[in-house]
């Protein structure tokens, strides 16, 4: 059993450096520690200026995604022991602009989430006094998986298409759109489809499926995109056959 393990941590302080560098830190090795524990050890005892995001430490808030030895990971759910004897290289999530050290800029991602209209759209609201919309467990299962996304952005860091073209709306946003489309209470599919059938929307995806492989929550964004494309293609086709058919 080893006593310590080395982390090579990407540093970037825009007021000091023009480009990112790596700094080596040696931390105690504890089999119960995740990569995030090691970062916290560094921050508390070795270098208080190291900056990164984290909060829940239980894999649900989505804050702590980083590249660990080249792969996008939730650092609070990635054990040091997996990388023995080290070193472990920790970098900010790929394909996003770096703000500082391990923290990346998120506004593009946030705008993309909003752009798919991720809320229940209905022609007519049922008054609360009439109770809940009925939804059977089977209907719930239709969209449940897509509702499990924690917005960790790991799928974007895994997606070669997003890496090349930031206009691509990307896996999590598409899964979110599909989460509402497949919800029996929602009637907004057409509205969202109009939005997304533009080329930046879904057509960019070349079905590499890296997003689904990387996703720590089994959301299967690639599956969502697949469903979406099929639907969009059919609708597009139908619009030629019977232009009055939609709407």
């Amino acid at each position, binding site marked *: 059993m080893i006593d310590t393990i080395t982390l090579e941590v990407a540093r970037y302080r825009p007021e000091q450096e023009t480009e990112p560098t790596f700094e080596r830190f040696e931390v105690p090795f504890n089999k119960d520690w995740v990569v995030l524990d090691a970062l916290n050890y560094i*921050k*508390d*005892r070795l270098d208080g200026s190291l900056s990164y995001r984290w909060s*829940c*430490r*239980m894999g649900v808030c989505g804050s702590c995604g980083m590249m660990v030895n080249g792969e996008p990971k939730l650092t609070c*759910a990635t054990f040091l022991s997996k990388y023995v004897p080290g070193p472990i290289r920790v970098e900010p999530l790929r394909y996003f602009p770096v703000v500082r050290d391990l923290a990346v800029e998120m506004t593009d991602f946030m705008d993309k989430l909003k752009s798919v209209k991720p809320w229940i759209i209905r022609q007519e609201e049922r008054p609360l006094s009439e109770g809940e919309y009925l939804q*059977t467990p089977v209907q719930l299962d239709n969209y449940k998986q897509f*509702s499990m996304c924690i917005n960790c952005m790991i799928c974007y860091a895994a997606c070669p298409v997003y890496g090349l073209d930031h206009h691509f709306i990307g896996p999590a946003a598409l899964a979110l759109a599909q989460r509402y489309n497949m919800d029996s209470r929602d009637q907004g599919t057409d509205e969202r489809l109009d939005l997304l059938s533009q080329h930046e929307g879904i057509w960019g995806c070349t079905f590499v499926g890296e997003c689904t492989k990387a996703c720590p929550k089994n959301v299967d964004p690639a599956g969502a995109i697949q469903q979406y494309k099929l639907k969009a293609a059919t609708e597009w086709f139908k619009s030629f056959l019977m232009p009055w058919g939609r709407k």
Partner: protein
Amino acid sequence: MDISSHDVLLVGGGGAGLRAAIAVSETNPKLKVAVVSKVYPMRSHTVSAEGGAAAVIKSNDSLDEHAYDTVSGGDWMSDQDAVEAFVKEAPEEMLRLEHWGCPWSREPDGHIAVRPFGGMKKERTWFAADKTGFHMLHTLFQTSLKYNAITRYDEFFVTKLLVDGGRVQGVVAIELMSGKIHAILAKAVILCTGGCGRVFPFTTNANIKNGDGMALAYRAGVPLKDMEFVQYHPTGLPFTGILITEAARSEGGYLLNKDGYRYLQDYNLGTPQPKPVLRSMELGPRDRLSQAFVKEMEKGRTIDTPYGPVVHLDIRHLGEKIINTKLPFVRELCLKYQNIDPIKEMIPVRPVVHYMMGGVHTDLNAATALTGLYAAGEVACVSINGANRLGSNSLTELLVFGARAGKAAAAFASETAEPGSHVVAQAMDEQRRLERQFLSKTDGRESIATIREEMQATIEKGAGIYRTGDLLAQAAQNLRRLQERFQNVAITDHSYTFNTELTAVLELAFMLDVAETIVQSALQRSESRGAHQRTDFPKRDDEKYLAHSLIYRNEDGSSRLEYLPVTITRWPPAERVYGK
């Protein structure tokens, strides 16, 4: 300095903050709303809540029963007018969330499903598998995107409330991305900053739960209420403190000591049955279960581990199917973080600091003692939770009192003048303070982590599950000393870009203040009630202490306490009976 102005400003984008923001917009769509949050809203700690949210919906249940369970669960410290309003508005609020798309678990026929929960006599806890808070928060966040009147200030850290002429008129916040200081003015401010579990060393609470809003209000002269009541949850994973939801017990899990014995039967909590019985044994209230653990430990009947003594939570008999459908997150957490599979193995657990019953003193409409300032959610104390919160009442509380706060603040802002210019000068002072005390400070010697760890050890020793006057007095002294040492804290990071050392030091300052209010309030309460157990005063004393404590900050940083009688409407104080 950047200056902006809104009608209503929310500090906090968790469940309470988002519900309140939407309520403002629905009450008066013309009002400009700002949501200021130190993390992106969907990172807020509401996301971690697992088990469920209580509201009467089934025909075998009644509002009175929900109210009674809450009042007796709170050891008669809850204000009964608040509880009555809460249980009455809960079902509609929960339904509203259903209409907004929350993926509630369902009965086969499509109706909402409910599960039993600790201290509740009927099944009334709505759930979304065991990721209830996650789904509620994402539903609220996604729905909030629809309202154009809501402007978000994501990753803005609030350092001060701006108060002038006896009324709150905005906040000062640091934009983390750039380090810029902003004065964000508003006619009304609602605090929704959540709890303060991080004051303690071992907690289920996320890194961001530092009591910020409690300290902000306290420093502005607003009293905090019932701060001595801190909830330990009986089942946290050792080392990480990750919560194993009460739902594991309501689905039928057993708590076993080192002899495999369901020890709760020795503590006046009923007799063991194979199936879960409501308000009995493993479904007793959290304070009593956590206290029973300490007694077992004292009898040498717990199991030692490198991370402290534990007992076992056994859910193996529920079988793979129930575990996978009703408790998938429990399994995921055990597999990932404890390296055990609860289908085959028992889960090691120990009590862990979980929830703050106390908080900023508010009335039924979430208004505080300071004009224009409101508070809702875990930061606030209305109080419905009394001396011990029942699991699954908190998520519902976010909705009911978040909505009430939003409506009240909207009404207030609609008839109030714009903030004055005086507060801008105050904001400039705050900017200078932040510069001088932290950003340009180079001569400090004390490490942030050391002071934080000593504070956590101090409060656990003095104000843990069992307390005594002596230990509390010692803790109070230690905290004073830590406050002094904090003046000499070392700052190594002088950058303006995403400076998380700066936020850590500001959070530590908040926590030190909050820790002192907890210890002082506990020291003054010479009785045992709910989560506040004094071994030197083991009995409940309704003569003297059927009253909320209100702690105020004095000019010199010391504190003073006052008491406010508990509101009793229909349920006179009685003995708490479980397992019968």
